[in-house]
């Protein structure tokens, strides 16, 4: 399926809960394919959407390539899902944007096991809480590390456990 057909089918199935199709113009053909994304207007429907993407036979998005988090520096955070069907060979990106204040979205670990560690990393680095994640601990930093470093407003602490941070 082409990405336009996929977007059409998703819009038909989810209607208002999905937002606009942001297509890259210019750039290489690869970027037009892998840089365009579909917006998710209602982040709380992410898990339903994920199940639909994976289980609908004509979509068959069995592979979550990457789950990334993004700080837009305007008080909102985004989360981007790059999914692909290894059988049908099509890809699509979906992006949900929500307020940075108590950011929380449903976890898709139950849909794609690959999301498990990436969601933990997003929680660790960007402070996005994933509802329904089986084991939402910090991934790379210490359990007691203050704050979430990849947020644009993150200030490095001067002291960590009473030790001066050298740089």
């Amino acid at each position: 399926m082409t990405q336009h057909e996929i977007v059409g089918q998703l819009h038909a199935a989810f209607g208002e809960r999905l937002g606009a199709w942001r297509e890259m113009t210019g750039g290489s053909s690869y970027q037009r394919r892998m840089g365009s994304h579909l917006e998710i207007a209602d982040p709380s429907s992410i898990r339903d959407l994920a199940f639909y993407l994976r289980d609908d036979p004509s979509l068959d998005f069995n592979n979550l390539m990457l789950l990334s988090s993004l700080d837009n520096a305007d008080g909102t955070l985004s989360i981007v899902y790059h999914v692909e069907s290894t059988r049908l060979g099509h890809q699509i990106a979906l992006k949900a944007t929500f307020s940075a204040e108590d950011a929380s979205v449903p976890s898709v670990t139950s849909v794609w096991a690959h999301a498990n560690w990436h969601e933990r990393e997003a929680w660790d680095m960007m402070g996005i809480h994933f509802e329904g994640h089986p084991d939402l601990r910090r991934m790379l930093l210490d359990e007691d590390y203050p704050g979430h470093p990849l947020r644009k407003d993150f200030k490095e602490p001067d002291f960590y456990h009473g030790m001066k941070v050298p740089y």
Partner: protein
Amino acid sequence: MPEILERRMMSSSTLHASAPLHAPEMVEHGRLRTEEMVLNMGPQHPSTHGVLRLEVVLDGEVVVDVIPHIGYLHRCFEKHTEHLTYPQIIPYVDRMDYIAAMSGEHGYVTAVERMMNIEVPEKVEYIRVLFAELQRIASHLIAIGTYGLDAGAFTPFLYCFRDRETILEMFEKTCGARFLYNYMWVGGLSHDLHPDVLGMCRDFVKKSRETHREINELLTFNHIFVQRTAGIGVLDPQVAVNAGASGPMLRSTGVEWDIRKNDPYSIYDRFDFEVAVGSSKLATLGDAFNRHWVRMLEWEQSLNIIEQILEQYPVHDTTDVQSAIPKRIKPPVGEIYSRTETPRGELGYYIVSKGDVKPWRVKVRSPAFSNLSILPIISRGYLVADLVVILGSIDIVLGEVDR
């Protein structure tokens, strides 16, 4: 009770904070009471391949659960990128997958070139693919060698390192560095190919086929090695795709999936090579042996690609390898997810540009990170000795896992 026994009880009861410190009843329901033991493997352990820490719950010697703890080598790559220009990031990319730095660079520069729509000279593409494939062999040599070490065979490891030395020598001649190259630049290369390298490559291909046969005899078809690795850590193909396995880990399950074929980049569509997949003739599909076997096959396929490059390489092309490098590396507003096949699997870069000389956000899909997350799924129920072998078969590089 002797003091030492008491202390033992204390250390094993740390799992349950509220457990009493006195000795529990030794007999329960008419049977000898047994307890699970928590073994802490790493971050300093000979076979965790770096600073990985595994919290292993053991019942006797049987692994009940494995909880990987990572982050000991975390160097905030993604935070660093927000403060660096695009070319400045390349040395940091080297330090992610330090075993296969060329492949990492290749993935990164491909991503940026795709964002800026740069056409790279043909000669540059040939050199890039040549070096990426040499790097793939070098990386697989380490994977195969250390895998032998995990199984207790010391000697193949040194044979592998002997051959890898030749590859590093070629890299050193060309760009001056043996390990962390900063060789592939956005739109070009830092140096032209050293005139000796093509000759060295021809010799290397011959010698490497010899080593390949030798390693097969010494390790792959060694009865003890097959006994140790066949049938353990079995990964189902459905689970593999769902859990984000890629590279040899995915192909060992029988899934024919290689970015070089399925989503070709650079000039890989010009070469004739097969995607190495696991074989159910030798062992169970998706087990630790097949992961090793796929690496052995890929080694051969990489040699095939190198031979074709040696035939096709434009020897008389005098194009400056830096001619296509843009004056200002400033991708237009937009984003991309670009992926390439490194020795460990699918290396993806999600780059968001706001039209600045610095990226807004770079997120890496590191294959080792995704592959390692499958470890708990495939190692439950096997012995401690198997756990080490399974971990070795995943072939992780902690620099890439922790970034």
